[in-house]
């Protein structure tokens, strides 16, 4: 005589699609640590992933090697260029192509000149601090108190910008 047992039903509330950004963030943090700890992408610390210093190092490397300029480059990227920005663009291109999302289109910034100005302005402001928001979060995780202050400043900057946009829309 067989005894039938009903196993308790386990439900997972974690939905992958709803947490892709979280998983990407976690991967970024871990890869930043791996790059620094095992592949010597340092000094300075926390340089594994950065969307400001990496592109600027790459631009400076190309300028120095092609035009003979002497622009500043982080010591570790002098001999070999940092290729993270190229990887981001190719990785995104492959993902978009594979999922049939690649399409030449305008936007999100509607005016072409404004998009150029934003790129120009933002990199200059970001280089005054020396990092993008991703590396700021990595540096805050490294325990640097000033990076924590900067992270709070970034949050304030976004909120002030949102309020400015809301105010501008109300006036129209």
């Amino acid at each position: 005589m067989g005894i039938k047992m009903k196993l308790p039903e386990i439900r997972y509330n974690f939905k992958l699609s709803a947490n892709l950004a979280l998983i990407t963030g976690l991967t970024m943090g871990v890869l930043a640590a791996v790059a620094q700890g095992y592949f010597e992408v340092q000094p300075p610390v926390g340089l594994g992933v950065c969307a400001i210093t990496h592109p600027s190092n790459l631009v400076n490397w190309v300028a120095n090697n092609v035009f003979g300029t002497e622009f500043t480059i982080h010591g570790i990227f002098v001999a070999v260029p940092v290729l993270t920005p190229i990887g981001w663009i190719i990785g995104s291109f492959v993902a978009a192509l594979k999922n049939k999302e690649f399409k030449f289109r305008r936007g999100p910034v509607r005016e072409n000149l404004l998009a150029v100005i934003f790129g120009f302005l933002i990199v200059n402001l970001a280089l005054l601090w020396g990092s993008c928001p991703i590396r700021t979060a990595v540096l805050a995780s490294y325990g640097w108190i000033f990076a924590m202050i900067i992270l709070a400043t970034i949050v304030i900057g976004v909120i002030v910008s949102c309020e400015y946009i809301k105010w501008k829309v109300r006036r129209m």
Partner: protein
Amino acid sequence: MIGIVTLVIGLILGYMGQRSRFCTISGIRDLYLVRDTYRFKGLVGIIIGAVLGFSIFRLIGGDFPGFPLLSEGINVEPPLLIPIMIFGAFGMAFFSTMAEGCPFRQHIMFGEGRLSGMLYIGGLVLGVIFFDIVIVPYLQLLTIAG
């Protein structure tokens, strides 16, 4: 080696960034304006991933000098640069919100075929050269004065 490592990291994050629509600036914006936490969780993810990564890999032989830096305080030399750095970070966040994406997201939009992403990166390249030629000498003077 560093070239290959950074390229591989870039490819992985580029692919994931496109699929997830990850953006640090939009994450804060969405949370503030519409209480949407999807992208904000990405920023939280970086902090959790990096803290875990630094802590665990340090235990198994990773090279993380001075980690955690908490005991060193603010540690910015010269202190004269502190207001400039805060101004820079504030401005970056302010204008990135208007540009509808952090610098990382702009690279991803470039790969997706978005014209404004491509033009943004073009502006970024010009901006880096401008910074090297015009701003760096002033910063060096400030550093010496400080």
